[in-house]
């Protein structure tokens, strides 16, 4: 055997390209895998295929002209990013927001979070081979999209929040639809439990798979449900509350072992906690203005910088704006959670089977256009 190794180039490890076009990578992601038989020896994610130049666009536009861009960064959490950007500018300029607008924004953001998690749930199970929960999740998600459509006019990329409030007021129809949705989801959790969570095939494919331990998560800057599944209860809504989150009572679910099954449980329970938040916010919704009238059309913020963090569906996101007194930002940097979440793959994937790579990638919930901005 030794002579054979010397005479010919016997390379046991071969390179496989989980290419930019693949049904299971969520977006244009390329992972270069070095395989030894069925086991992965090295994994190298390659990003940049979806770069659209949002940060450069931020430099060339006024603050309010950047509003459509904010939703399109992470299009599954469009409302959350819209909300976050508006928060950043309000912090920079010092705009007061009426109470009613704050509550409306929180309700819309939490609805968006539920819809993002539902989509993740559907596509994750579809990656594992079960095609039906995908359609059930989308049926529920359709209700949310209809609710948000009735108040903002768009289904996916909302430009609903403005500096100092929101564009349209919510009416009784919105409140009725949201309450009907919450009631409907209470029956759905048991269905999803029976169909997916207790299913032995699903449990065998996710338990013990892709374990991220706490130390690794801290080194790579993993945030969001991935970090909470490792046992760290870090949620921006709890540690640095913004808007009205300090007046609402909700739990931050955590896992213990950091495997794919824990990440699934954390996101599932987060959906239920979001329903709780919406319920309380609807109860506490005050009357009043929905948009403050004191905001000038052409903002001229003072010189300085602001870093406003918020909890998007995937983790800690933030807008970092540097102002030099002109109507547009001098520098607009966006901190996205998927960048850290993705890079941890190069540590987690080696040693696993190829078939598990898809399961791990799906459980981390990355949106690639958010990384490439």
């Amino acid at each position: 055997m030794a002579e054979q190794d010397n005479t010919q180039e016997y390379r046991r490890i071969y390179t496989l390209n989980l290419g930019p076009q693949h049904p299971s990578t969520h977006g244009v992601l390329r992972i270069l895998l070095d395989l030894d038989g069925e086991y992965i020896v090295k994994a190298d994610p390659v990003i940049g295929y979806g770069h659209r130049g949002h940060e450069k666009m931020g430099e060339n536009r006024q603050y309010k002209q950047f509003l459509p861009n904010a939703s399109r960064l992470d299009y599954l959490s469009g409302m959350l990013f819209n909300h976050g950007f508006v928060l950043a500018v309000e912090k920079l300029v010092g705009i007061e927001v009426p109470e009613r607008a704050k509550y409306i924004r929180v309700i819309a953001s939490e609805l968006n979070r539920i819809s993002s998690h539902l989509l993740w749930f559907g596509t994750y199970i579809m990656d594992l081979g079960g095609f039906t929960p995908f359609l059930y999740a989308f049926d529920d998600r359709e209700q949310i999209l209809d609710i948000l459509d009735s108040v903002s006019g768009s289904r996916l990329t909302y430009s609903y929040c403005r500096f100092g409030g929101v564009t349209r007021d919510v009416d009784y129809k919105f409140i009725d639809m949201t309450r009907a949705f919450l009631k409907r989801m209470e029956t759905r959790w048991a269905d999803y439990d029976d169909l997916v969570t207790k299913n032995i095939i699903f449990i065998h494919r996710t338990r013990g798979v892709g374990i991220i331990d706490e130390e690794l998560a801290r080194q790579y800057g993993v945030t969001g449900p991935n970090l909470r599944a490792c046992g760290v209860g870090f949620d921006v809504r709890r540690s640095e509350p913004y808007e009205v989150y300090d007046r609402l009572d909700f739990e931050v679910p955590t896992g213990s072992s950091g495997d794919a099954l824990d990440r699934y449980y954390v996101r599932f329970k987060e959906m239920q906690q979001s329903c709780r938040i919406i319920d309380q916010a609807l109860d506490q919704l005050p009357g009043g203005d929905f948009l403050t009238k004191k905001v000038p059309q052409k903002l001229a913020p003072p010189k300085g910088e602001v870093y406003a963090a918020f909890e998007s569906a995937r983790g800690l996101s933030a807008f970092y704006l540097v102002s030099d007194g002109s109507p547009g930002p001098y520098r607009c940097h966006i901190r996205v959670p998927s960048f850290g979440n993705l890079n941890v793959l190069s540590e987690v994937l080696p040693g696993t089977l190829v078939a598990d790579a898809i399961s791990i990638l799906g459980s981390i919930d990355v949106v690639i256009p958010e990384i490439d901005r």
Partner: protein
Amino acid sequence: MSEGLLGSEWFRLILGLLIVLGFASLNALFLVWLERKVAGHIQLRPGPMEVGPHGLLQTIMDAIKLMGKELILPAKADRKLFFLAPVLVFMPVLVGFLVLPFGPSMIIRDMNLGVLLVFAFSTFTVLAILAGGWASNNKYALLGAIRSVAQNVAYEIPLLLAVMSVVLMVHSLSFSEIVTSQKSVWFVFVQPIACLIYLISATAETNRAPFDIPEAESELVAGFHTEYSGMGFGLFFLAEYTNMFIVCAVATSLFFGGWNGLFGISLGIPGVFWFLFKTYALIFILMWVRWTFPRVRFDQLMNFSWKVMIPLSLANLVVTAIVLKLI
């Protein structure tokens, strides 16, 4: 040997062959439509609705479309094997129709080795899949074919062991004798574990979900029929549905009473309708299972077969033998 229905053996054989071919094609067309409708309704949508009333003509149009496509031969592929593989998958399965007991005297050839014939010929699919995977000159198709062969071989054993439990009880391998001995009580009540093992192994044998790693867009490896286009792919597809029918028909004959009614009560309905109804009910259950569960990972699939299915089916066989000896 049973009496020829219309006298001449040759006439009966040729008539039977024509009926089998016609029935197999119609059956495959119907099953493809049924699968899409069942999938649609489980997923809260209607399925095909445009082509023909409620999409009934959809499969025929799809078949015509497939026939019109170009047959692509990959570079450096083994030409003879490549075109032989789909034919090899489809033809032997048709042989199984010869011995199925559709009704009290509606068997084309009542052989005293009927059960053995069906399983012997259905094992050809393994060879055909390997031939197709190898001849494609594609490393991923080969990997898919290898996995499929391993899966088929592993699940063949509990399948046959479950069938052996029934054969031990009846002392015969002939289908008509097995069905007549279920006149008073179906074997599913006597041997429930064997029935369950048979159904699970049959799902794995026909490469259906949750055991459909060889054929689904499984993660990386795209399956043994990647390189096939047009009618080659169509034949693999038709063979899968025909195989499904055969396997469910065998299950009906072995465990669910064949053309007998429930506990001997036939309600005046001829046996052939009972047989078809039970077979299609089992096929519906197979489809229902496909659209509910995610896929099993390959090593877990093999573990399940070798560590769970085979010990259980062996234990079942031993217990059956002991009980038969004692009574």
